[in-house]
């Protein structure tokens, strides 16, 4: 059953009670929250996602709540709880919805050890995966949001989920996070897209989330084969330059960008090596979104 088909009272009761179990690709997430902004945000952004029964054994489980202290009467805050304990110090209350996304990312990064996880955006075309690993600020989410409105399928804007044989990638297909200036860039690029409400003044500035298309959500369980690993670097006004990169060098960067490669030991390393072996690896500098899209289209057509 899709979330939008769940009757509203049932949806509210699950979220405020035993938890709403959302299927996001290979991970099922149990989300609990009594906060209206979280409820409305999920209803909007996850409308097309499949919902599992509350009795399901989920992969990750979290609650977004107001911290139970006196301060709530002075300045309301919000925190997230995993395994019965708050994870970060509380955030300002207006950040509840982005916190939900960060919380899900944290739970996946911390608890998942049956896939290799790389901090990267992943999109697919013709069954082949384009992996865009990058430190924050390199424009991977913006690129990802732009590409999924130009014929590429969304796997994830945050996490490349690689099988431990390194032979295929999965995506969670969760909402794409956009920050600050990239919000307007994507609004202009994809006027038909559905956006969640913006949260101002977060640790990352203004943040909002883009709803994934129903078609991509419906295909969330389709894996993709590794094909390209591209390290993007955005520079104002720069021309697009795609340069092949030595694989060993890229491997080291990817290990740095992985949430769990070190933790998985040999299995992690082998999976990463297989992923790199099966991909063509590039550095990519660009200054204009349209140039980038053209370059990736040419890659896909090769």
């Amino acid at each position, binding site marked *: 059953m899709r979330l939008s088909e769940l009757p509203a009272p049932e949806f509210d009761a699950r979220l405020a009670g035993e938890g709403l179990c959302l299927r996001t690709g290979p991970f099922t997430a149990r989300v609990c929250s009594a906060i209206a902004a979280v409820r409305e945000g999920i209803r909007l952004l996850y409308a097309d996602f499949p919902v599992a029964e509350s009795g399901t*054994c989920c992969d990750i*489980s979290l609650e977004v709540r107001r911290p139970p202290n006196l301060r709530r009467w002075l300045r309301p805050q919000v925190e997230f709880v995993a395994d019965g304990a708050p994870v970060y110090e509380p955030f300002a209350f207006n950040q509840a919805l982005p916190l939900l996304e*960060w919380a899900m990312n944290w739970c996946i990064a911390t608890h998942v*050890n049956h896939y290799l996880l790389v901090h990267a955006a992943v999109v697919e075309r013709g069954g082949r995966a384009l992996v865009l690993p990058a430190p924050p600020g390199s424009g991977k989410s913006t690129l990802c949001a732009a590409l999924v409105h130009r014929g590429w399928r969304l796997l994830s804007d945050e996490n490349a989920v690689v099988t431990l044989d390194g032979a295929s990638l999965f995506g969670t297909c969760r909402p794409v996070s956009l920050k600050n200036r990239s919000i307007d860039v994507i609004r202009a690029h994809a006027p038909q897209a559905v956006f969640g409400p913006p949260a101002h003044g977060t640790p990352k500035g203004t943040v909002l989330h883009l709803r994934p298309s129903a078609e991509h959500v419906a295909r969330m369980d389709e894996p993709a084969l590794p094909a390209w690993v591209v390290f993007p670097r955005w520079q104002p006004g720069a021309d697009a330059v795609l340069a092949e990169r030595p694989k060993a060098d890229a491997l080291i960067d990817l290990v740095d960008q992985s949430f769990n490669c070190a933790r998985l030991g040999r299995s992690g390393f082998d999976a990463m090596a297989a992923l790199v072996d099966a991909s063509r690896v590039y550095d990519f500098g660009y200054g204009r979104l349209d140039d980038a899209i053209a370059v990736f289209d040419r890659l896909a057509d090769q």
Partner: protein
Amino acid sequence: MSRGDLLTACFVGTDRPALTGVQWEVVLSQARRARLAGRLARRAVEQDWFATMPDAARHHLQGLLRVEQTRRNQTLWELDCLRRALRGAGFPIVLLKGAAYVAAALPPARGRQFGDIDLLVPRECLREVEARLLGAGWVGEKLDAYDERYYRDWMHELPPLTHVERGTALDVHHTIAPPTSRWKIDGARLLDRAREVPGEEPFFVLAPEDIVLHSAVHLMQEGDFGAGLRDLLDIDDLLDHFGRETGFWPTLAARAEALGVGVPLVQALDQRSRLFGRRPPGECRDSIERLAAPAPRRWLMRHLLAVALRPDHPQADGATTTLVRTTLYVRSHWLRMPWYRIVPHLLRKAALRTAARLRRPDRAEAGPAPGP
């Protein structure tokens, strides 16, 4: 029904746990809290549970087996580094707890989530050890004068050390309980009986009876029972393992009496018997019973610990959990320090915590990137 302590039952008996999907999810969550996730994974393998559990739980536990292997390798590597730093020291370097279990291949090593490495060295060698470790990259964090004094004078260890490159933590002790504690033990008496670990020079481990007593003292005077069930399982494993050697139990009873730690030993044995139904062999029972605290105190502790050893998880909490945990937290300080030190110490800690909380902004500066 997903509430309650579902974790403990997984370690009692040999039946495959009969759990629903969501209960498996809760068990895993409680296991992570209790630092028993790796151990649960090992148990699932040993008892062949994988065929009958939900996929999500199986994936999670199988993943933990990989992580456990990595952590074990990291601990062995860390021990190699320590070996190089301390080679030729001319005095015994005794490994405690997790590091001892893995070096001496003792049963609690299996599935263990290794953390800090704990060492015991002769008190008069602390300065030399500190200097050698500093030379090899282990540095202490900057402490204020109070904390420095807290560790060096009142506690039984150097302030915690961290390796500058690897970020790994190391605690160097000169005995197993603070010199101010009710159960103070002269480290020299432990070192006398320590045994070299074959092939692991210069590392030693405590004598079997002392390993058990250390574990019991540690469990009973810790203020934080977050890993209490883990410690009790360790004790159960150790007793099972060493108990096969003839003469172990009488030695344990005599040693507990000689070191003045009969009370925590009996408390641990009471909990073991409550949970696993395993008791000391008949011929030693009397000599162990004699070491117990007076009946009312023993009864009270038995009941407080029964609550405190449940996983520290909201779904396992009962009506009295908070009260019991607070009582035991205060008691642990009571055991470790005289009242005229505890009261200022706890007040100072509370004041610092409050001050930190008041200073705290809404996390405006720190990024929320998910840490591995």
